[in-house]
């Protein structure tokens, strides 16, 4: 099979939109609520998940023919947990400020349903190269939703983007107020709901 066959392309492209892990498969919602009050942690979280899901996909794909069926979930979990621990240790050693900012969320990548979902549904039955593309695609798909949600939450909730004030002071003087509700986790859920709505509307039109 060639490197960029139709199948490989699909493995990478479908999770970005038509089969997005968050907005279509409704996976990884919990972390999408937790880290999206501001754009910066959402970005770092998106990157970290992409790295972990891509690497664990490759590892499980390489091991797939040796893994005993009865303990496959445990083996997958061990691989994911080991990778996340290593990523977190490396962040602590080489990017201390980022690791402080993400605090517990890095460890929570282990419990992200997208990882287990991809390992079980894809890596166990596909080759390493396709699994890598699938992992990257799903990671980016997840990151995209996180960034969209975080963009609106930070903009409307604190009037900032990446920590910089973007809403001019004159707006506030004219009576504009930040929407504190945006910073609460339920609003992330509402925003994700809106994204799903928009996406389904577009898909319904295309059909």
């Amino acid at each position: 099979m060639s490197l960029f066959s139709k199948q490989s392309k699909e493995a990478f492209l479908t999770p970005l939109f038509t089969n997005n892990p968050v907005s279509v498969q409704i996976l990884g919602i919990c972390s999408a609520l937790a880290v999206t009050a501001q754009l910066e942690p959402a970005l770092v979280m998106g990157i970290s998940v992409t790295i972990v899901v891509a690497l664990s996909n490759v590892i499980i794909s390489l091991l797939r023919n040796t893994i005993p069926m009865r303990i496959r979930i445990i083996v997958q979990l061990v691989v994911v947990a080991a990778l996340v621990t290593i990523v977190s240790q490396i962040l602590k050693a080489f990017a201390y400020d980022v690791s402080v900012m993400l605090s517990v969320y890095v460890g929570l990548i282990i419990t992200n349903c997208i990882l287990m979902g991809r390992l079980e549904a894809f890596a166990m039955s596909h080759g390493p190269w396709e699994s890598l593309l699938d992992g990257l695609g799903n990671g980016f798909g997840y990151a995209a939703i996180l960034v969209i949600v975080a963009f609106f939450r930070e903009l409307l909730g604190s009037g900032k983007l990446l920590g910089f004030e973007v809403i001019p002071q004159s707006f506030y003087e004219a009576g504009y107020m930040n929407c504190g509700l945006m910073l609460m986790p339920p609003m992330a859920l509402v925003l994700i709901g809106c994204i799903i709505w928009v996406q389904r509307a577009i898909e319904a039109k295309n059909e």
Partner: protein
Amino acid sequence: MKLNTNSNVYTIVYASVIVIIVAFLLAFVSGALSDRQTENVRLDKKKQILSALNVDLAACADPAAKYDELVKADPIINSEAVVLAENGGFEVDVKAENAKDSLQDRRLPYYRCEKDGETKYVFPLRGAGLWGPIWGYIALNDDMSTVYGVYFSHEGETPGLGAEIATPKFQAQFAGKSIKRDGVLTYISVLKAGQSDENADHVDAISGGTMTSRGVEAMLRDGISQYEKFLNK
């Protein structure tokens, strides 16, 4: 011969091998990186202390050197203001000391610093926010009453709400406030914007971060009260 990957023996051996490999891998990574990590933690602590001294860290190329330049001594005292050690306060684990039941047993570090020709005293603080621990440092002028600067941080307060205690905007309010009235410790109240406290200086709390703001107030009270004898000396 084709291995039966579903046999019990294979499953047990496979699980054992995987676990052993992962254990060695993690041990190796942790061992290889631990020096760097400890160094990062120490450097971060120095940065926090410098931050309480209103040092602009973004403009400071070498925080460790700046720390050595400003901090003249880090003595350890006890609650009776008896000096236990002239130096070494930096190594004291404030969390472990705060966990000791008896105030008399606690080893209390402070940092004597020189900045712009004036002596400043920095005291560590530790308390509880809404979701987890919060901590910080408070720098006092040599009148032992006026706040020169503060630094707060947290483990997992809500971003945009409680986590705002770590922002310069919140921390800047503390400079110039006094923790004493007529020579008696009154600490600093953290109050809803618009309210005021007759008996103590106050700063505005974070709207939407009430529990964390209360945590900051309690942390200031608990942290500073341990040094009462020393501050009144």
